[in-house]
């Protein structure tokens, strides 16, 4: 901390010396300003503004020194000094003042007035900075505190501004300033143009400015009121879009959690209550694989995550085949018993993971490319959510391909539609069952990898998803991946659209109640299987 400050001061010193080179003589205004800095608070504030207004080359150094409490005046009122790493420097001459007695100096203090003036002055100076980002930030700062006094500076800066973003910010700041107190001298057409500019820009800030126009002619007021309405509509649309993104994001998590369940339920009529625990195991596989790769290649969290995808699929798939062969096989035709047995299995798996890894959360690292957020128009897009949406879409696509194109998929569909007929046609239904269950479990493992990026990885992870996944499958109808997709997305979006209206918990309750009511009308979901097989 201290070190960076020292470097910073060294830079200041260089600037100071450059200033001395290019401005050997002092104008009268600057003389007055330096005098003002030694006066009372109001004098200091006026001096600061005047320094910045005249684009004095040393203004930045002086104002920065003032801001950081490094500006001193001699106790007798004569002389102004800046404290640097190498002792004091005379502010007027830039010459080092080695023999100065620190006890004879008095720090120049600031009050709120001075601080406001300092902030304004720095923004003015930044408006002419060589870096476009600095200029944009300065304009944004002026938008926060619009003032008619800023108008000349903004006009000056706009005349030579080429960076589009900075230009946009300046236009906004200028419009805001035109509508601020004390800008009534400017004509109505100019103010109307300012309202139009703010309306075009949109956003909560522009809305606040338009809402708080002080005194203005009726025409301007009317235009502003209309602009506020327009911006309100726009903001509503954006918040709807944001809700939609959150909804799709939640929907994709639900989708990937429910896909495996839909496969096993659709093909075998088996409700696998241990599905959530398979997800949990997938998340733990992610943890283990990432831990292993990061011990070889420290700092690379992405590789571990990438390797975890096939690893989780294989581990959970193998586990699923084991469960089918060892347990579910014996319970065919008794769906309710299967439900109970797999629930028992889920308890065992939970406790096993708890014994192995401990009851508390384990840390799965989010790779750099997945952290952070991007802003698109008026909505924030968190990158890990975006990656999960893409991942869920890929898994869905892969499953569709498996079901449509591969021989296993053909056999699975045949068994789903008519088990006995499929068996008579020579399909080994028990093998199809085992592989189907393995596939569904493997997808649960993939869901675990995805969920490990947004949720706590603990032995209880699965319990949080199992009911929601059931709801998706029941809502969407079984034996149809598109039904699962539709179910997941409707539930996700409904949840997130209701959330701002009713609160998170109430939204969830509402959605559950809606599903319960929906089932009354469509007992077999949105996309029910049709045909004889259904009734058995």
């Amino acid at each position, binding site marked *: 901390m201290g070190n960076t400050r020292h470097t910073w001061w060294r830079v200041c010193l260089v600037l100071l010396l450059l200033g001395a080179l290019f401005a050997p003589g002092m104008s009268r205004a600057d003389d007055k300003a330096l005098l003002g800095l030694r006066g009372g608070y109001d004098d200091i504030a006026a001096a600061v503004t005047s320094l910045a207004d005249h684009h004095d080359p040393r203004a930045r150094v002086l104002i920065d020194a003032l801001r950081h409490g490094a500006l001193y005046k001699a106790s007798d009122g004569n002389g102004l000094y800046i404290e640097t790493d190498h002792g004091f420097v005379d502010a007027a001459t830039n010459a080092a003042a080695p023999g100065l007695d620190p006890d004879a100096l008095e720090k120049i203090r600031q009050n709120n007035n001075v601080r406001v003036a300092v902030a304004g002055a720095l923004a003015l100076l930044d408006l002419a900075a060589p870096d476009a980002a600095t200029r944009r930030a300065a304009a944004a700062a002026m938008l926060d505190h619009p003032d008619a006094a800023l108008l000349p500076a903004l006009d000056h800066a706009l005349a030579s501004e080429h960076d589009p973003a900075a230009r946009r910010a300046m236009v906004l700041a200028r419009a805001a300033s035109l509508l601020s107190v004390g800008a009534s001298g400017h004509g109505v057409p100019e103010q109307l143009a300012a309202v139009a500019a703010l309306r075009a820009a949109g956003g909560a800030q522009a809305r606040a400015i338009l809402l708080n126009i002080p005194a203005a002619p009726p025409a301007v007021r009317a235009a502003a009121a209309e602009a506020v309405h327009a911006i309100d509509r726009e903001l509503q649309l954006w918040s709807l879009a944001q809700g939609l993104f959150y909804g799709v994001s939640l929907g994709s998590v639900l989708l990937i959690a429910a896909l495996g369940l839909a496969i096993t*339920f659709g093909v075998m*009529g088996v*409700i696998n209550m241990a599905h959530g625990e398979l997800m949990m195991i997938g998340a733990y596989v992610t943890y283990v694989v990432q831990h292993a790769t990061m011990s070889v290649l420290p700092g690379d969290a992405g590789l571990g995550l990438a390797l975890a995808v096939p690893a989780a699929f294989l581990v959970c798939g193998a586990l699923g085949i084991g469960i089918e062969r060892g*347990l579910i096989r*014996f*319970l065919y*035709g*008794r*769906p*309710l*018993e*299967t*439900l*109970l*047995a797999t*629930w*028992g*299995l*889920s*308890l*065992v798996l*939970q*406790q*096993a993971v*708890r*014994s192995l890894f401990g009851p508390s959360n384990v840390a799965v690292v989010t790779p750099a490319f997945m952290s952070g957020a991007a802003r698109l128009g008026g909505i924030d897009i968190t990158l890990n959510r975006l990656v999960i949406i893409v991942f869920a879409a890929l898994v869905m696509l892969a499953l569709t391909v498996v079901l449509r194109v591969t021989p296993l998929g053909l056999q699975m569909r045949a068994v789903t539609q008519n088990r006995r007929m499929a068996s008579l046609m020579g399909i080994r239904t028990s093998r199809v069952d085992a592989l189907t269950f393995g596939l569904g479990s493997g997808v649960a493992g993939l869901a675990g990898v995805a969920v490990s990026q947004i949720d706590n990885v603990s032995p209880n992870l699965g*319990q949080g998803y199992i*009911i929601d996944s*059931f*709801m998706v499958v*029941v809502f969407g109808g079984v034996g149809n991946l598109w039904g699962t997709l539709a179910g997941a997305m409707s539930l996700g979006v409904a949840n997130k659209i209701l959330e701002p209206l009713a609160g998170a*918990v*109430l939204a*969830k*309750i509402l959605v*559950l*109640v809606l*599903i*319960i*009511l929906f*089932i*009354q*009308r469509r*007992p*077999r979901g949105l996309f029910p299987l049709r045909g004889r097989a259904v009734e*058995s």
Partner: protein
Amino acid sequence: MIRRRPASDWAAAVVLAAACVLALLSLLPEARLLHVPAYIVGLAGKYLSYAILALAVDLVWGFAGILTLGHAAFFALGGYAMGMYLMREIGTRGVYANPDLPDFMVFLSWTHLPWYWYGFSHLAFALLMAVLVPGVLAAAFGFLAFRSRVSGVYLSIITQALTYALLLAFFRNDMGFGGNNGLTDFKDIAGADLHQPATRAALLAITALVLALCLVVSRMILRSRYGDLLVAVRDAENRTRFIGYRPEHIKLMIWVFSAVIAGLGGALYVIQVGIINPGEFSPGNSIEAVIWVAVGGRGTLWGPVLGALLVNFGKTIFTGVLPELWLYALGALFILTTLFLPRGLVGLRRRVRRDATPALEPGDGEVTP
């Protein structure tokens, strides 16, 4: 089999007698050899309340083929109704000593008692609500579900959704039921101190009596013509419908009766355990109740009672001695019971006796011709 030997009546008598003996022994002076400590009385009361819930689950699962994964919701609603009365009984003895509001409402700076708390200062009203609220909810839910012929796993899953929705709702502070902490710190019931051995002994005896009555009434229902229809619906719903009966009405009646019993069990449970919180709504609880029935033997009336007592006794032992092994044991119980004991312990006994009449065909709902 009920026709030949009303085993459930014997079970009711045994439970009642055992509970009364236990209650009387707990009143002996502590120095006596046969004295039963207070915590045993409390545990026995809790087990018997669970047995009432198990009986309720069995009535719908064993006799109507409806696997409910949400019966703990009715149990907990009955419990909340009783808990509300017990909260009102605390009166000014709470931390904030507010005569009108329970502590948690004072803590949330509420000024008025919500309207749905009115009347709960009377025990009779609370008892009525403990059966009425679960009954009405079950009637509404069952009417919708059975009318549109939701059955099998779909019904199981939406019963789970029901209890899950209630779980979330009762966690909310705004609901006015104590939120996360629920209702607790009860002092007395109808003027009797809840911490006195005599009160606890009486409560145990009352719980046993209620369980015995439930068993007898259930037996009477099932031996009636209606009971035959119920089993007919369980085994072949479509055939029963085609003969001209209305399966949805038949199912609805037993469903509501079962919910009422569960609510009663919950009310007795809360008095003896001394706390009710939203955790009672958690879907896991409902599923655990199902395993009591499965272990004891569904489709019989005394099987679930036996199962509830045994499994909960095992749970107490396990969680005391080897807490980390309890979930393994419970999980194994689920798996082994469904694989090897589809008719539960009662079925085992029958198998040993080579009894020819099975209580239940394996398989649920429709028997396809």
